[in-house]
């Protein structure tokens, strides 16, 4: 793990505080104010904001531009970067560019397959995978070398993150993969949304047994459910999602107009439970299209005010 903190998020995690990150999807358009509006609702209630990289393979404003708008507005971004759309030349170039724009956190991902998106006829790239990207970013940071071994004039000093899905198969291999990500360079991990706490606890125990919770900060993902329909849709249609029947029932057992409140209640209970799990260093709130609720959630979870960083 990089020792000298390079970002606000790293400062907070290194100080042992329970971190809060949030997700913000850039607009399907080029309006910078659209990013600013969403970001404004997250200011002061999250330590860093993930800007997604054409998530679900739908064309949006680029992650790097979205992050740059955040930096301008005084928020700290986590730049998500997928290997689906860019080869190693473009990825490295964008990392250098991102650093030059003041972006200090990166989340390395392979990315949703383009067949899920609005342009399934596109060619994918996958020149390198997410673990190879982690390795490349760490080598750029720690050794100042690009993937060709060229000494960079101003190495990008990024705080490096990776994703993990404790709910995907094959379950036993998930810890091996987590270890590979940490070995390759991940300083922090943001997980898939947790609804199945039992399985998450098992995964965390396995990670702790393998010594991984000592080597990377783990931020557990949460997504407040808006409706019973959303719960069912995510359970059935979203790849890698595990929503137990008990959670879906809770959402469908309340009247429609109360469902959103129930979703927030489940989210708060989940955060409370996550804080009790050894090795969980923070939460990553992915309130998809519902960014305005993040402040309430963070406040109600007792996670305000967010720590100051020098």
């Amino acid at each position: 793990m990089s020792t000298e903190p390079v970002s606000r998020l790293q400062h907070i995690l290194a100080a042992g505080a329970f971190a809060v990150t949030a997700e913000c999807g850039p607009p399907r358009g080029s309006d910078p104010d659209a990013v600013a509006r969403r970001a404004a609702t997250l200011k002061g209630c999250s330590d860093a904001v993930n800007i997604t990289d054409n998530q679900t393979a739908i064309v949006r404003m680029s992650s790097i531009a979205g992050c740059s708008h955040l930096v301008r507005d005084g928020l700290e971004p986590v730049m998500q970067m997928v290997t689906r759309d860019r080869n190693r030349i473009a990825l490295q170039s964008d990392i250098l560019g991102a650093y030059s724009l003041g972006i200090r956190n990166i989340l390395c991902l392979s990315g949703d397959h383009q067949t899920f998106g609005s342009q399934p006829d596109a060619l994918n790239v996958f020149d390198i995978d997410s673990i190879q990207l982690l390795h490349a970013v760490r080598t750029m940071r720690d050794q100042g070398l690009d993937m060709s071994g060229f000494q960079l004039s101003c190495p990008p000093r990024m705080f490096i993150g990776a994703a993990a899905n404790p709910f995907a198969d094959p379950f036993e291999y998930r810890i091996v993969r987590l270890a590979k990500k940490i070995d390759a360079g991940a300083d922090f991990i943001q997980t898939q949304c947790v609804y199945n706490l039992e399985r998450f606890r098992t995964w965390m125990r396995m990670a702790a047994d393998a010594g991984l919770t000592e080597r990377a900060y783990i931020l557990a993902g949460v997504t407040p459910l808006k409706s019973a329909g959303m719960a069912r849709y995510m359970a059935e249609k979203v790849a890698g999602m595990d929503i137990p029947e008990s959670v879906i029932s809770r959402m469908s057992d309340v009247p429609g107009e109360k469902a959103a409140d129930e979703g927030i209640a489940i989210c708060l209970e989940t955060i409370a439970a996550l804080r009790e799990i050894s090795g969980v260093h923070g939460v990553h709130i992915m309130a998809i299209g519902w960014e305005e609720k993040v402040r309430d959630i963070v406040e109600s979870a007792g996670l305000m005010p967010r720590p100051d960083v020098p």
Partner: protein
Amino acid sequence: MIVGEQKSIAELQKIIAPYKKILILGCGTCTKTCFAGGEDEVATLASALRLACRKNGTGISIEELTIERQCENEFIQEAAPAASRNEAVLSLACGAGVQAVARRFGTTPVLPGVNTTFIGVLERQGIFTEECVGCGDCRLALYGGICPIARCSKKLLNGPCGGSKNGKCEINPDTDCAWQLIIERLTALGQLDNLRTYIPPVDWRSSNSGGPRKLVREDHII
């Protein structure tokens, strides 16, 4: 083998529309095995096209011939007299065969009758699966004989993505997750430790990213 699928009659009719005399040239190797371009398919296609053209009122003369392989001059030569008697050749070989025939018959248009799809295996009668992309640097020893470049939808070399569920790939419930298969196979072989090691990026120069490839076997050149 190279697997291909015959184009639709509608598309083939458009492709041959400018010609009154065509040779349908079958290939007795790969496309024969995948029921796209062997002797039987040549005969069936010829009948179908004759019928379709008769319905349209467009007269056409179709000659049929199948040679052993369309990717070797030795066999292509056998088709030379038939090719010269016709205005165009409709080849039912793979894309390599079409080009090899076209190269040989410089003034006769050679048209593709098959969409070449992949290098694959006959999983069971009538079902073919893609297994190899011809990357030029075989890693199958490491992965228990299952190729993640050909069979993982994201070409991941360091383990499964978060979309593997119940042994299936996130992109399609009919597609096996290659990584599930790799892990099961390596477990059975007692070689699961292969997957703990970091696998560095692929050098794609050995694939077609390095430009069209040529294999020179000095020991076989006469």
